[in-house]
Every structure is written in C-alpha cells, then in structure tokens.
C-alpha cells in the first residue's frame, strides 16, 4: 500500500531511477494491527444506529493504537465536563429545594434551574456546531528531517438506504501536517469514501474486522499521501 513519491524529475540518463525523496514518514496502518487478537463484534443488523456505532468504535480502536495516533480527547472531555457539571447543579438544586422551605428556596432554585439550562444548551450547541459528525481526532509526531506533527480528524455518517441501495457508511478524513509546533504548514488533505454496511457485516451481524480495517486504512493513508 505504501507508494513512494518522485520528488524531482527523477530518472538519470542511463535509466536507473534517481533519488527518491520521501517527503514525509510513511504510515502503515495494517501493520499495526497484525497479531492482535480481536473479539468478534456482533450487533443487531437491522438497527442502523448500532451498525454505525460499531463501525465508529472499530475506527477508534484501529487508529488509537500506540504506534499510530494518540487520541485527542477534547470533544469527549468537553461533553463530559459540561454534562457532569449540569448533573451536579441539578442534584444540588434539587437537594437544596428539598431541604429548605419553598418560599425561601426560590431564588437559589431559580439560579440552579437557569444555570442547568445554560449548561445543557451550551452542550447541545457545542455538539451541533463544533463537534458535528466527528468520530476520532488524533495526532502523531514523527521525526523526518524535523519534528513533524500530523493531525487527523475522522468523521462519519450514515447514508440512508434507497430503493436498490443498501444503507452506507460514509467516512471522511481530514489531515494536516505541520512543523515547528504548528507554525509552518507542510500539507493538508481531505478525503471521503462510502461503502454499504453490507460489505462489513454478515447475516448474523458480525463485523468483519479485516475488511473494515483494510478499507479504513486505505482511506486514511490515501488522504495522508496527498499534498
């Protein structure tokens, strides 16, 4: 799967190929998955949400291996932070309202309910506008000629079934390569591909990890190679 890029007009006059400079480090995703035992993942075939979640989980598990990318948990952490803050505000307010007599408790209960509303709305807005379809965000640092940081963001959605077409899983990858801790941009790429869920799941609902991983690896590596 790894292809070498020709950097400068490469052939020397006597036909031997010239120096091929690989401009950035290779990634071999499938190699990282060799030899690892996987449990069979089984889902309910008829439930589109379960199918998508199983695929998303497989993407996360594939890309988050130590040799590949290290996961950036920002979206999850913000959702957890806002969510649990809201829960504590809610329980605190309810407990306070329970302990203190109604008329006296009103100002603080108002404050609590409004604060909870703000946290919930913020969380919803964040998920809708900032996070959207994102499934995985990761980065890796490699040492080629200099320390390069590569950042990858994977998002997915389900393309619903049409008359003759099965429902499809659409994977989008966006990639940025930079050096000097983000100050110089070396390259970026975007790519998207979709496959029917039927290519990955059998009649029992078991996910074919090999096939799925190979496809995801192909999409990601493709995006990372483009300048």
């Amino acid at each position, binding site marked *: 799967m790894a292809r070498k890029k020709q950097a400068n007009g490469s052939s020397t006059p006597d036909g031997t190929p010239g120096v091929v400079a690989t401009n950035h480090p290779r990634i071999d995703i499938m190699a990282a998955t060799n030899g690892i035992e996987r*449990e069979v993942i*089984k889902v309910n075939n008829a439930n589109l*949400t*379960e199918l998508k*979640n199983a695929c998303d*989980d497989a993407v*996360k*598990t594939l890309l988050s291996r130590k040799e590949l990318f290290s996961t950036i*948990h920002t979206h*999850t*952490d913000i*959702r*957890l932070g806002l*969510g*649990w803050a*809201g*829960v504590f*505000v*809610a*329980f605190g*307010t*309810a407990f306070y*309202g329970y302990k203190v007599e*109604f*008329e006296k408790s*009103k100002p603080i*209960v*108002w404050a*609590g*309910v409004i604060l*909870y*509303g703000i946290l*919930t709305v913020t969380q919803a807005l964040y998920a809708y506008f900032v996070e959207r379809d994102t499934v995985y965000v990761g980065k890796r640092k490699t040492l080629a000629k200099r320390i390069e940081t590569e950042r990858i963001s994977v998002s997915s959605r389900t393309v619903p079934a049409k008359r003759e077409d099965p429902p499809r899983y659409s994977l989008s990858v966006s990639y940025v390569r930079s050096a000097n801790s983000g100050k110089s941009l070396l390259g970026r790429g975007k790519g998207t591909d979709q496959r029917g869920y039927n290519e990955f799941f059998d009649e029992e609902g078991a996910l074919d990890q090999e096939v799925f991983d190979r496809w995801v690896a192909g999409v990601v590596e493709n995006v990372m190679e483009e300048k």
Partner: protein
Amino acid sequence: MFEEELKTLRRLGFRYALLQALNFASVIASGLMMWKGLGLLTNTESPIVVVLSGSMEPAFYRGDLLFLTNPTSEPYRTGDITVYKIPGADIPIVHRVIETHEAVSKDRVSASPVSKQYLLTKGDNNYADDIELYQGLEWLERKHIVGKVRGFLPYVGYVTIAMNDFPQLKYALLGGLGLMALIQRE
C-alpha cells in the same frame, strides 16, 4: 446478557464508562430540573399531585392527577378547590374553600389583602368541614396553601399510588430505566 456490553466497556475504556453513566445521570437530572422549573413557574412546591382519598367525589376520585398553581396576586374565592398542608402533618389535602375572610389591617400600606386571607375548607363528600383536620388552627392562611386546582387527569395517578403501596415496583421501574440508559447508546 451483559457480555456484549462489558466487552465494549473494556474495549473502549474509562471515558466511555463515564459517558454512559452521564447518559443515565442526565436523564434523572433533567427530570428533576423540569419538576423544579415547573414548580417555580406555577409558584407552588408541588405543581402536580395525586388524589389519595374519596373526600372530593364526585368531582375527583382517588387516583386522579391534579394540576396546581399558586397565584400571588389573586385572592382565593369560595368555590376554589385548594390543596393545603397543615404544619405537622405530611399529607396534602384537597378540599374546597367554603368561607373566606380578609383581615382588616390598620397599616394599609404594608399588608396586602391577598396575603392576609383566612380560609375554611370542606371536602365535597364529607359531612363536616375541616376544622378537625386543622390541628388547633381556626382558619387556614395562605401560607398553608400549596395551590389551587386548575385542571385534572383521571386515573393517571394510580401509577403513583401503586408505587407507594408497593415500593418494589418503584425500585424495579427505576432499575429498569437505569439499565436501559446504561446499555443503549445514542
């Protein structure tokens, strides 16, 4: 039964467990906040109550759900159906107002007639008025009133009555809901 879920949990790690727990907790939290918010909007600590006795038949039967509000600017009138709580007794009582008196106060600026109302109530289906229930008070004051009945739904309250009489039902329901929230994923 939980094998698949435990496998997923182990595979996806600690953050995932927190997320699933958050799903469950936020369902409860939003329920609590909606209840408290409704109470604030209607100005009563218990905007929805269940009729427990038959003392208001044929208007309300045991198991009916009542919707209450507590308007601060309107005085209560004879004929209003109120829910009140006597200090010292835990159970709210749903009865009709049969007499109201306004206290005449010398200082007309500070005491509004609305807050100094004295009320006498009686259940439609009872023979005598509620004096015996007042535990020594001669009149009900506004501060004892939880709210005035604005509307009702028949039969729906039986769920609450059943859960109070059979606490196992309550725990089973809560446990079932919790299980569903933890297992499912958005």
